[in-house]
C-alpha cells in the first residue's frame, strides 16, 4: 500500500503536502482541486465521471483480510439456511431425522452463502469463499467429534468417579448388581502402573540406545536396522500380543501375568519410540557435533554432552507420547495379562488387570452399574492420557529455535538493560551489578534446544558482550 502511494506521489510532482496521496490505482478518493487534476490524472484507473469526494487527508486503509461484510454474509446465510430447513421440515415435506436436518441445513447454507457473496464478488472469489468455508467446516467437524468423544467418556464416567471408593477398592467382593458406592478399580490402576513401568524399563534404554546408534554409527548395518524398525511399526498390536502369548505363555509355560503384558507392550512401543527418537536426534545440527569434535571431545562424550542434551525436549516428548500410546493399548494386554477382579501387586505371577482391559470387560456386562464402572475406568484412562499429553506439550511442544515466554521475557529484559547501560555511558562502573541479570541469557539449556541458527546467535551474542 505504501509503495502504491509512493509511486503515485512520484507521478504527481505538482502536488504538495500530504493531501497529494490520492491514488488513482486505489479506486477511492478523488482529487478535488481542478488545477492539480492535470495530465497525470488521465490514468486508466480514474473514471472521469467519479463523484467528487470532500477534501482532506486520506484515511488509513485497513489491511485486515476479514471484513464486517463477510461476517454478515456468513451469519445471514446461516440464519437463512436454518429458517429454510425449518420451513422444509416443518411445513413442506414430512422429514424428521435430526441428522437429515443438519445435512440439509448445511447444504442450504453453502448455497445461500454462495449467492450472498456473488452479490459483491466475481465467480472466482465466490468459489474461493465457498471452498474456504468447506475446509473450515471439515476441520470444525473433526475437532467437535474429538471433543465430543472425550467429553462423552468423562461425562458418562463421572457417576462412578464421584465415589471415592472407586479409587481405593477392587472388585473382588463386588457383584455386578451392587451400587456404585462399593467396589472400584484400584487393581486395574496398579496393573496399569506396573505394566507400563515394565514396558518403559525395557523400551527407554533400548529405544534411545538404538536411536543413538542409528544416527551416530551410520552405515549399511544402521540402514538395515532402520528399515526393519520401520517395518515393525506396521506390526498390528494384536499380533505383538499373539507373539508374546505363543512364546512366553505357551512355549515357556509362564502364567498370564503383568510381566507378559509389559513385554507385549514393549514390543509394540519399541518401534514407535525408536522412530520418534531417531527423527529428533537427526535434527541435531551437525555443526554442534563437529564443534565438539574440534574441541577434542571423544564420540561418547559428544553424544553425552552435546547430542542428547540438545535433543532432550524432543526425546522426552517421544517417550511420553509412546507411553500414551502404550497405556491405552488393549489388544496385546487382552491376550497376555488375563483378567482378575482382585488386587495383584506382583507382576510376576497370576493375572493382572489394567485400566483398558478392565473397561473392556466391564462394559461387556449388561448391568448398568458395571457399565458405569467401565466408563469410570475409561475416564480415568483418558484423564491419564490427557495428563501425559499436557506434560509432553509443556516439556517439548516447542519447535527448534522457539523460546518459551519466560525465556523471551528474560531476553527482552537483558537487552533493555543493555540499552540503558550503553546510553547512560557508565558501563564499567555498573559491571558487577549487571552480571546476575545476564545469567539467564547465557544459560546453556535454551541455547542448544534452540536449534542451529538461533542457538548460535544467542550464544555468540552472550559471548561477545562487553
Amino acid at each position, binding site marked *: 500500500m505504501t509503495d502504491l502511494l509512493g509511486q503515485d506521489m512520484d507521478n504527481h510532482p505538482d502536488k504538495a503536502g500530504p493531501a497529494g496521496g490520492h491514488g488513482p490505482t486505489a479506486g477511492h478518493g478523488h482529487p478535488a482541486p481542478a488545477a492539480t487534476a492535470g495530465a497525470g490524472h488521465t490514468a486508466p484507473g480514474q473514471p472521469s465521471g467519479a463523484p467528487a469526494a470532500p477534501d482532506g487527508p486520506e484515511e488509513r486503509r485497513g489491511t485486515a483480510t476479514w471484513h464486517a461484510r463477510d461476517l454478515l454474509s456468513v451469519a445471514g446465510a446461516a440464519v437463512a439456511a436454518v429458517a429454510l430447513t425449518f420451513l422444509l421440515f416443518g411445513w413442506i415435506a414430512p422429514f424428521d431425522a435430526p*441428522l437429515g436436518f443438519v445435512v440439509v441445513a448445511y447444504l442450504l447454507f453453502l448455497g445461500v452463502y454462495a449467492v450472498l457473496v456473488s452479490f459483491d464478488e466475481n465467480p*472466482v*472469489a465466490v468459489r*474461493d469463499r465457498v471452498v474456504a468455508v468447506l*475446509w*473450515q467446516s*471439515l*476441520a470444525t*467437524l*473433526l*475437532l467437535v467429534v*474429538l471433543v465430543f*468423544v472425550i467429553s*462423552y467418556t468423562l461425562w*458418562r464416567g463421572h457417576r462412578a468417579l464421584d465415589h471415592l471408593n472407586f479409587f481405593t477398592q477392587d472388585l473382588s467382593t463386588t457383584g455386578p448388581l451392587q451400587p456404585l458406592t462399593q467396589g472400584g478399580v484400584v487393581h486395574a490402576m496398579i496393573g496399569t502402573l506396573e505394566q507400563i513401568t515394565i514396558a518403559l524399563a525395557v523400551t527407554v534404554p533400548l529405544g534411545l540406545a538404538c536411536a*543413538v*546408534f*542409528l544416527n*551416530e*554409527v551410520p552405515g549399511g548395518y544402521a540402514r538395515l*536396522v532402520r528399515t*526393519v524398525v*520401520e*517395518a*515393525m511399526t*506396521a*506390526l*498390528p*498390536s*494384536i*499380533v505383538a500380543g*499373539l*507373539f508374546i502369548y*505363543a*512364546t512366553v505363555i*505357551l512355549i515357556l509355560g509362564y502364567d498370564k501375568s503383568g510381566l507378559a503384558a509389559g513385554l507385549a507392550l514393549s514390543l509394540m512401543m*519399541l518401534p514407535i519410540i525408536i522412530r520418534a527418537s531417531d527423527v529428533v536426534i537427526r535434527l541435531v545440527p551437525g555443526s554442534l557435533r*563437529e564443534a565438539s*569434535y*574440534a574441541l577434542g571431545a*571423544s*564420540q*561418547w562424550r559428544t553424544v553425552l554432552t552435546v547430542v542428547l542434551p540438545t535433543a532432550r525436549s524432543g526425546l522426552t516428548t517421544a517417550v511420553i*507420547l509412546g507411553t500414551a500410546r502404550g*497405556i*491405552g493399548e*488393549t*489388544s496385546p494386554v*487382552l*491376550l497376555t495379562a488375563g483378567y482378575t477382579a482382585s488386587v495383584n501387586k506382583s507382576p510376576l505371577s497370576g493375572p493382572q488387570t489394567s485400566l*483398558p482391559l478392565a473397561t*473392556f470387560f466391564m*462394559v461387556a456386562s449388561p448391568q448398568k452399574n458395571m457399565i458405569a464402572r*467401565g466408563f469410570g475406568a*475409561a475416564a480415568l*484412562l*483418558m484423564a491419564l*492420557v490427557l495428563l*501425559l*499429553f499436557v506434560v509432553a506439550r509443556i516439556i517439548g511442544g516447542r519447535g527448534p529455535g522457539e523460546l518459551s515466554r519466560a525465556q523471551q521475557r528474560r531476553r527482552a529484559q537483558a537487552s533493555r538493560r543493555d540499552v540503558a547501560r550503553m546510553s547512560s555511558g557508565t558501563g564499567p562502573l555498573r559491571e558487577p551489578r549487571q552480571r546476575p541479570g545476564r545469567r539467564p541469557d547465557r544459560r546453556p539449556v535454551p541455547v542448544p534446544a534452540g536449534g542451529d541458527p538461533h542457538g548460535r546467535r544467542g550464544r555468540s551474542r552472550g559471548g561477545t558482550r562487553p
Partner: protein
Amino acid sequence: MTASVLGPGHPGGTAPEPADAPRVLHSAGAPSDRVFRGLARGSGGVVLGLMLLVGVFLASRAWRALAVARWSFLTTAKWEPDSHHFGIAAVLTGTVLIGMVAILIALPLALGTALYISEYAPRRIKRGLVSLVDLMAAVPSVVYGLWGVFFLQGHVVGLSRWISQYFGWIPLFNVDGVDPHDPLATSTVYTSSTFIAGIVVALMVTPIACSVMRETFAQAPGGEREGAFALGATKWGMIRTVVLPFGVGGIIGGTMLGLGRALGETIAVYMIISPVFAVQPHLLQNGANSVSALIALRYGSASHFGTSALMAAGLALFTMTLVVNFIASSIVARSRSGAGTEA
C-alpha cells in the same frame, strides 16, 4: 568419527610433488569410543534380533497351518482349524471393507483439517490445533470403541436405514431380510455393521493421515505461493495450483499410512461388530469380521494347531499392513515434498 578423519587428511593445494599416494586414514579412536560404538551396535543388534525373531517365529509357526490348508487358506470362509477346515476369506474381506469405509470417511476429514491448519488457521491457534489432532491420535482405542457402541450405534442406524432404502440397489448397500416399506421394521439388522466399525476406525486414523498431509503442505515453497498470489490467484487458486500438486505425495502417503493402521485395529472393531464367518459384502448389515477381531475372539480356546492357524492369519494381516506401509512411505519419500526432509 568423521571429524577426526577429516582433520589433516586433505592435501593442500600447495604441495608441488606430483605423486600423492592415498594416505591411510586412522579412525580408531580412544578405547572409550570403541566401547561406545560396540554398545551402540549391540543395542541395534538386540532390536534387530528381536524384530527378526517376531517375524521368523510368526512365519515358522504359521507355516505349519499353511502347509495343511494350502491355497484353501485364502478361499475358505469358515474357521474350524481343528477339523482342518479354515481360511481367511471372510475375515480378510471384512478387514479390507472396514479399512475402505474408514479411509473413505477419513480422507476428506483429514484433508480438510490439514488444509485448514496449514493454510487458513490464524497463527495464534495453529499450535493448539496441531496439539488437538495429535491428542486425537493418542486417545485409547477402547475409548473410541465405547463411544461407538454406546453413542454412535444408536444414532447412525437411521442413516443406515436411509442409505439402504434409497441406494439398496447397489449390492454393497443392500441389506438382506428387510422390507424398506415396513415402517415397523426392527432396526437391529443395521447394528454391529461394517459401516459403524468403519466410522469409528475412521476417527482413529484421521489424525495420522492429517499430520502427514499437514507436514507436506507446510513444506510447499513460499516462492511459488507468492508467485501464485502475485499472478492474482485467490487463496483457493493458490492452494489448487501450488499446495495440492506439491502435497499430492503426502496426501496419498498419509492416506495409506492411515489405511495400514485401520487394517490392524482390534479393540474398537471387536467391541462393535458381531462376528460372522462368511463373506459379508453388505456394509450396512449386522455382522462383520476382521482378522484382528478373529485373533482376539479365538486365541483363548485355540488348540496347539489352532494357535498356528491364528498365527497364519496374523501373518497375513502383518504382510498386508507391511506392504501398505512400505508403499506409503516410499510414496512420501519419493514425492517432491519428501526431498527436503533429510536434515
